[in-house]
């Protein structure tokens, strides 16, 4: 089966920073965690996949279409949705925020309204519909931001450290809900995190990055058991690894 995302011979230059990915692919329905310290290139890779940043060289294929050389990446960009570290809600009500993406993509009237309300319900924030987006809490705002992205039913969902600005209880609840949502909708997702194992646990694949290079890509268990680089073992913290391994190997409830 043709992968949904294919990256080959990618080179991105941002000032002095260089990101190089020789090869990477992601099948439809797969979830990938990008892990690595700050400055490892996770956000840059997400922006390139979201067609928000042009690479200097290389091939990126999304849904079977090459992104390089496109006169306008708009049509392809509309197959992708991105959630950032901050909720980045616009002025107006919560509902207006979720409707915005749908309207920008040409959906109008009742269909757009139903899509928006359904997405808000899935994230448990439908009761905030009429609230001013500036008046809700950080955790609620991040849920609205996720609802705004999921309402678009994207082929590919990109999440750039979506939990890092949340307090631990809000983060854990949202992490659980996101895991259930990704499973139930079968959405292909790439999520960056420097929180290592907690968030990595909800993904089927893990890519460990350092200073713009992809050190290892594989199933979490495979990466934890056979780190391909000393940095991978060091970064993944073996003490916590053992606990996650246990949970990964435990039979489903």
């Amino acid at each position, binding site marked *: 089966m043709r992968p949904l995302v294919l990256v080959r011979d990618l080179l991105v230059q941002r000032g002095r920073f260089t990101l190089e990915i020789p090869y990477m692919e992601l099948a439809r329905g797969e979830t990938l965690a990008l892990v690595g310290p700050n400055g490892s290139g996770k956000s840059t890779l997400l*922006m390139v996949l*979201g067609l*928000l940043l042009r690479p200097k060289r290389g091939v990126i294929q999304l849904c079977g279409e090459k992104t390089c050389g496109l006169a306008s990446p*708009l049509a392809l*960009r*509309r197959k*992708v*949705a*991105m959630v*950032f*570290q*901050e909720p*980045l809600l*616009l*002025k107006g009500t919560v509902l207006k925020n979720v409707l*915005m*993406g749908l309207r*920008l*993509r040409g959906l109008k009237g009742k269909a757009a309204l139903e899509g928006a309300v359904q997405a808000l319900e899935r994230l448990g924030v439908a009761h905030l519909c009429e609230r*001013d987006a*500036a*008046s809700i809490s950080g955790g609620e705002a991040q849920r609205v931001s996720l609802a*705004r992205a999921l309402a*678009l039913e994207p082929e590919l969902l*990109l999440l750039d450290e979506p939990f890092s600005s949340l307090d631990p209880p809000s983060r854990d609840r949202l992490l659980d809900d996101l895991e259930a949502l990704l499973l139930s909708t079968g959405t292909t997702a790439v999520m960056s995190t420097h929180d290592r194992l907690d968030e990595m646990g909800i993904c089927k694949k893990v890519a460990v990055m350092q200073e713009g290079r992809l050190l290892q890509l594989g199933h979490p268990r495979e990466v934890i058991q056979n780190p391909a680089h000393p940095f991978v073992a060091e970064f993944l913290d073996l003490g916590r690894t053992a606990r996650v391994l246990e949970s990964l190997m435990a039979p489903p409830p």
Partner: protein
Amino acid sequence: MELILDGFEKGVRLLWAGDPEVLGIVLLTLEVSGSATLLSLILGVSTGAAVGLSRFPGRSILVSLVNTGMGLPPVVVGLFVTILLWRSGPLGGLGLLYTPTAMILAQAVIATPIVAGISIAAMQGLSERLRLQILSLGATRLQAVWLLIREARLQLLAAVMAGFGGVVSEVGASMMVGGNIKGYTRVLTTATVMETAKGNFDLAVALSLILLLLAYFITLILTNLQQRGHKR
């Protein structure tokens, strides 16, 4: 103090009686400064969006020029607009000198850098990630710019208020390009200067009080618009 009180009383009486000459002056002031502000809004906000949201060589030089323009002396503007519109000048054929249109042009030249300077700062103050977020929601470039302008509308309305305040109170340019012609190009500031020169202090005070009231009410309307978008 007595002079000010007399002026205030006379101003109220002139307005209350609906003095046609004063009413004409007030309406022309509104028309000229309102049109100039509208023109500067279109030019200033689009310049602000273009410069504030992009990176190009020489950008900081352009921003510093715009910022310098925020303090453009009205008499200098008046001089250059007069030269441009003078019968033998480059735009002399249009026959605009000593018309309300010439006053609108001169006031727009004064207000545009004010609106543009504040707009550039407002657009630069928006997070780069917000622009990326809007693009990732599926906006075209133009839609993204429009949504970002809406996000910065609090500051942009402040820019409009500053622009209007700058032109409704200026006298040098209006006097030079309008000529203070009775019933045609006479506005509140030029009329005040003239009455002061003639020694009619009570009338000058009355006109200046009307000008202050006018500026206050326009700013009040704009402030209400601004604060409506700032519900918390």
